[in-house]
């Protein structure tokens, strides 16, 4: 097992910059997930660790050694692929033992290790099958066995669950976590699915447009996103964003005002555009908001569409008449809509006029122009001043 360190990795394809100056460090035994939308450079970044892609600039270290110019086979990494990439002309045993046989281990050792690996991923008795005779989940387990059998320093997993069906994906997710615990391995995991990233990782690295946006523990990314992109990407459904302008005593938006002392925000002043972000679960109906210690003033709204999910109900709120009928608008970005999540026993129906409040301690403020976070939580408690880099005080 080993640390992985990326230093100023940049990858350009002609004019196109796929990865832009990424530096990060993965600790020994840590499970780090690269997450981001398609084409954000997460796979390319991983490929530079694997050695399948040469970075245009920057250096890669595994353990204490620089491996930037080493061939993939000499880096001590193993990889699990999105398209599984089992060799179709070899049976399971030959697939798993491929790397060992290349390294000229003696037959007995190969057999022992293959059986051990097959045991770990529960593939006993399937060693003589061909990949084409197996289900997707079994194939991916062979892929994982092929990776663990060599006892590599670092595991690289490139969307290993993306091609599996939903139920199997959840199952394999748990298996991978168990595997990580058992092997105590350093894992770099790439996914576009923020739920996978949240549930499995020690830390999440959020990438967008080839740039590293934030690398932090999952809950930190959730509660204290460093910018608008992370705030919108982590969490499902997405955070509500409402654009507004900073005034003397608060933040004024199209439909409501949130009280705030502008001097608490550094870098912006009165008159500057500021975006307010609040997650759907932090929007509350006024009649159920008694338990909130610190809430905003009432906001008048009309419910539009209800989406019962079973364990919760998503309610689309229209804040003004202007928003009615504008089907295309996304509550995540529209200034006149909010998405609220309520418990299923809440009495609410579509087309009802309601009052809602926001939980001030869960409101995020972002500088509209740059997208950078200004403040997480507006609660003005003495001795517990929340800032742009607070501790877990607000969670």
């Amino acid at each position, binding site marked *: 097992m080993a640390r992985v360190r990326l230093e100023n990795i940049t990858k350009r394809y002609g004019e196109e910059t796929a990865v832009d100056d990424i530096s990060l460090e993965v600790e020994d035994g840590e499970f780090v997930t690269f997450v981001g939308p398609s084409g954000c450079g997460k796979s390319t970044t991983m490929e530079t660790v694997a050695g399948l892609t040469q970075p245009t600039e920057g250096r890669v270290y595994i353990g204490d050694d620089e491996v930037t110019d080493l061939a993939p086979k000499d880096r001590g990494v193993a990889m699990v692929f999105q398209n599984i*990439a089992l060799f179709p*002309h070899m049976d399971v045993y030959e697939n798993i033992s491929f790397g060992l046989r290349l390294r000229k281990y003696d037959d007995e050792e190969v057999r022992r290790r293959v059986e051990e690996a097959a045991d770990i991923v529960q593939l006993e008795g399937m060693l003589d099958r061909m990949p084409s005779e197996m289900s997707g989940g079994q194939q991916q387990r062979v892929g994982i066995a092929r990776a663990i059998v060599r006892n590599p320093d670092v595991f690289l997993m490139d969307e290993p669950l993306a091609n599996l069906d939903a139920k199997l994906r959840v199952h394999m997710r748990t298996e991978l976590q168990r595997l990580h615990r058992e092997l105590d391995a350093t894992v770099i995991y790439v996914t576009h699915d923020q739920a996978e990233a949240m549930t499995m990782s020690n830390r999440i690295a959020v990438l967008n447009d080839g740039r590293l946006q934030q690398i932090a523990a999952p809950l930190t990314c959730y509660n204290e996103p460093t910018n608008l992109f992370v705030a919108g990407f982590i969490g499902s459904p997405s955070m509500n964003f409402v654009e507004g302008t900073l005034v003397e005593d608060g933040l004024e938006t199209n439909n409501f005002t949130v009280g705030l002392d502008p001097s608490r925000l550094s870098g912006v002043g009165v008159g500057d555009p500021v975006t307010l972000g609040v997650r759907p679960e932090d929007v509350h109906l006024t009649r159920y908001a008694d338990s909130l210690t610190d809430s905003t003033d009432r906001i008048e709204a009309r419910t539009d569409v209800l989406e019962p999910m079973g364990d919760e109900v998503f309610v689309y709120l229209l804040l003004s008449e202007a928003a009615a009928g504008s089907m295309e608008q996304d509550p995540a970005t529209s200034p006149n809509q909010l998405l609220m999540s309520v418990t299923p026993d809440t009495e609410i129906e579509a087309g009802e006029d309601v009052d809602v409040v926001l939980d001030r301690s869960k409101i995020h403020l972002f500088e509209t122009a740059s997208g950078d976070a200004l403040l997480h939580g507006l609660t003005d408690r003495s001795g517990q001043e929340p800032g742009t880099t607070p501790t877990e005080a607000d969670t």
Partner: protein
Amino acid sequence: MSDPRDTTDPSGIDESGADPPRDPTLRRPDGGTPASGSDDASILKDGRDAELDRGPFQQWVADSIENPDRVYRAMFYVAAVFFLFTTLFPFYWLLMVALTPEGQLQNIVFTPNGFNPGAFVEVFQVIPFHVYMFNSFVIALASTAVVLVVASLAGYAFGRLEFPGRTPLMLLVLVISFFPPAAFFIPLNDLFNTSFFFLEPITGDGTLYNTPFALVTPLSAIFMPLAIFILTTFYGQIPDGLEDAARVEGTTRLGALFRVIIPLSAPGVATAGVLTFIATYNEFFFSFLMTDGQPENWAPILDGILAYQGQYQVLYHLMAAASILGVIPVAILVVIAQEKIVSGLTAGALKE
């Protein structure tokens, strides 16, 4: 030929004065517009009336239009019989010539003048024909091996790598393959007859003339472009993930080519290999000119067959027998390889 459907358009009757109605049964007596639609339709549906005045040829044409498959099937049989005849009859005739005893080689068409199967043994007694066959086999095999190895590397580069100038290079290969091989003969012959000191330990006199290299080199070069194109297509279709997996698991790019990409492209490699083998084995021009025709000097089958042509007599029946013997290895190869190619195609089953 009259199409009964002409009458579906009642107004056409009046307009087409140059083509007067031929079949009175299909016409309304007054020749005018129909009084009622149902009456008109009943006449048209009754197709038997229209057949009454057709001759056998017209009938056949009408049936063919009705049912084109019949024509296609007939054309297929005609074409198949024609091609089978033109390809197989020469072999049959060769066999007849080979079986005819020496001295009676006139007017052989469908039957031999006598029966002399001993000719197939005699070919080896008169000259060492088996040596010629061995030479041809070695030359064809070596050329195929060279072609497959070099074309695999080229196919990998063209099919799987992105590099500047890939398309122009590929076109250059194509252009070179258009050159007539004869254009290379004089310079090559000159080259192969030039003595190089570093070749002396291998060839004795330092020239490549009268060695298998004099044939393998130009032949593999000539048949290379085709193999490159076939292999480029096949290698290009192997998913990138498989190569990446092999490289992470511990192979180099070359190792991945030989351990993963080539085994998965087996049908393509077999196709390229068989085509190259047959082409080099059958090649005439260089085979005839790059050796002095002596079996110990790596002369191929071609020279062996021509060796039955003496100064005073030509042993046609032995030439025929030798020709048939010479075809056998290729025939066997094609039969075996065809099975391999088909099985490779079905077993390949890549999952992406």
